[in-house]
C-alpha cells in the first residue's frame, strides 16, 4: 500500500507542476521578506525542488514529465521580448552611438574574457559554450547554449549567478572604476547582469533603469551573433 502511494505520488503529472509553482512561491515570499539578492526566486525554487526530489527519491524524468507543461510556453514568451525592445528603441535612438558602442563593447568583453579564462584554466569546449551566453537574459541564453551544444541547466544557473553578482556588486564596482554617468551605469548593469541586475539599476534611478532594460534584449540579440562566431575559437 505504501509503495503504491509512493508510486502514485511520484508518477502524477500534477506533482511536478505543484512542486515548481510551490517552490517558486516560497522563493517569491523569501525575496519579499528578506530583500536579499541571493534569495532569487528561481534559484530558491531550483534548490528546493532538487532537495525535494533527492529526499523523496522521485526521479528527474517523472518530475519533468509534469513540469514540462510549464516550460511549454517558453519560446512564445521569449518572442514577446520584441515588445519591450520595440518600446525602448526610442531611447536608444536618442543616445544611439554611445549606447551601441557600450553594448557592443560589453558583448565583446564577455566573449573575450570567457575565451581567455577558458584557455587559461584549460577547460573543454562544452564548458566554453555553456558559459558564453552567461551575461544575457535566460530565455535567449539557454537557446544559445542549446544551439551551440552547451549544457542548458548549467547555463541557466550560471546566468542566475551572473545576475546576482551584478545586482550585489554593481553600485560599489561602478563607483570604484569611476563610471558616474547614469546612462553608462545603466548600460553597464544591463549588459553585464540582465534582468536581475536591472532590478538594482531601477533602484539607482530612472535613467539607469531604462538604459539597463534596453541593454537586456539588445545585448542578448548581439550575443547570439557574436557567440556563433566565438564558439569556433576554442
Amino acid at each position, binding site marked *: 500500500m505504501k509503495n503504491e502511494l509512493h508510486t502514485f505520488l511520484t508518477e502524477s503529472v500534477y506533482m511536478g507542476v505543484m512542486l515548481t509553482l510551490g517552490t517558486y512561491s516560497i522563493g517569491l515570499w523569501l525575496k519579499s521578506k528578506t530583500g536579499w539578492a541571493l534569495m532569487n526566486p528561481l534559484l530558491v525554487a531550483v534548490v528546493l525542488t*532538487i532537495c525535494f526530489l533527492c529526499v523523496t527519491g522521485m526521479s528527474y524524468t517523472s518530475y519533468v514529465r509534469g513540469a514540462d507543461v510549464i516550460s511549454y510556453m517558453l519560446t512564445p514568451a521569449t518572442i514577446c521580448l520584441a515588445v519591450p525592445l520595440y518600446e525602448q528603441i526610442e531611447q536608444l535612438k536618442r543616445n544611439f552611438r554611445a549606447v551601441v558602442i557600450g553594448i557592443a563593447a560589453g558583448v565583446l568583453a564577455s566573449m573575450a*574574457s570567457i575565451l581567455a579564462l577558458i584557455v587559461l584554466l584549460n577547460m573543454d569546449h562544452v564548458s566554453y559554450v555553456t*558559459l558564453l551566453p552567461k551575461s544575457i537574459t535566460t530565455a535567449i541564453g539557454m537557446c544559445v547554449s542549446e544551439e551551440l551544444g552547451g*549544457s542548458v541547466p*548549467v547555463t*541557466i544557473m550560471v546566468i542566475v549567478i551572473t545576475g546576482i553578482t551584478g545586482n550585489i556588486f554593481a553600485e560599489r564596482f561602478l563607483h570604484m572604476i569611476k563610471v558616474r554617468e547614469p546612462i553608462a551605469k545603466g548600460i553597464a548593469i544591463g549588459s553585464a547582469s540582465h534582468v536581475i541586475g536591472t532590478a538594482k539599476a531601477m533602484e539607482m534611478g530612472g535613467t539607469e533603469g531604462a538604459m539597463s532594460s534596453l541593454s537586456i534584449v539588445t545585448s542578448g540579440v548581439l550575443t547570439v551573433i557574436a557567440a556563433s562566431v566565438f564558439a569556433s575559437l576554442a
Partner: protein
Amino acid sequence: MRYVLQLLIIICFSFLGEVLHAVLPLPFPAGIYGIVLLYAALSTGMLKVRHIKEASTTLIAAMPVMFVPPAVGLMETWSSIRDVWPQYMFITIISTLAVMAAAGWMTQGAIMWKGHGKARKEEQDEK
C-alpha cells in the same frame, strides 16, 4: 477572448520562427528569429503593440518560473561538473565584472567624447 487572439498572434510568430530555424542554415535559435520577425512586424506597423500587449506582458512576467524545470536538470548533470564548479564560479564573477567595466567605460567615454565634440563645435561657431 482578447487573450485568445493575442496568444494566437504570438504562437504564429513562434511557429514562423521555428520554420526559419529549420530552413535557414544559421546557428540562431528559433526564439531569436521570432523576436526579429515580431520586431519587424511592430516597426513596419503591420502589427500594433496593443494587438498583443496583455498576453505578451503576462508571458514575460511568468517567464522566470518556466526556467525552473530545465534548471532542475542540474541534478542530472551535476556529477559531470562537480569538479569544475569552482572554475565556473570564478569565470562567471570575473567576466561579469569585465563586461560591466567595458560597457560602462565605453558608454561613458562615447558620451563625454560627443559632449566634447559638441562643445568644440559651439566654440568654433562663436568664433
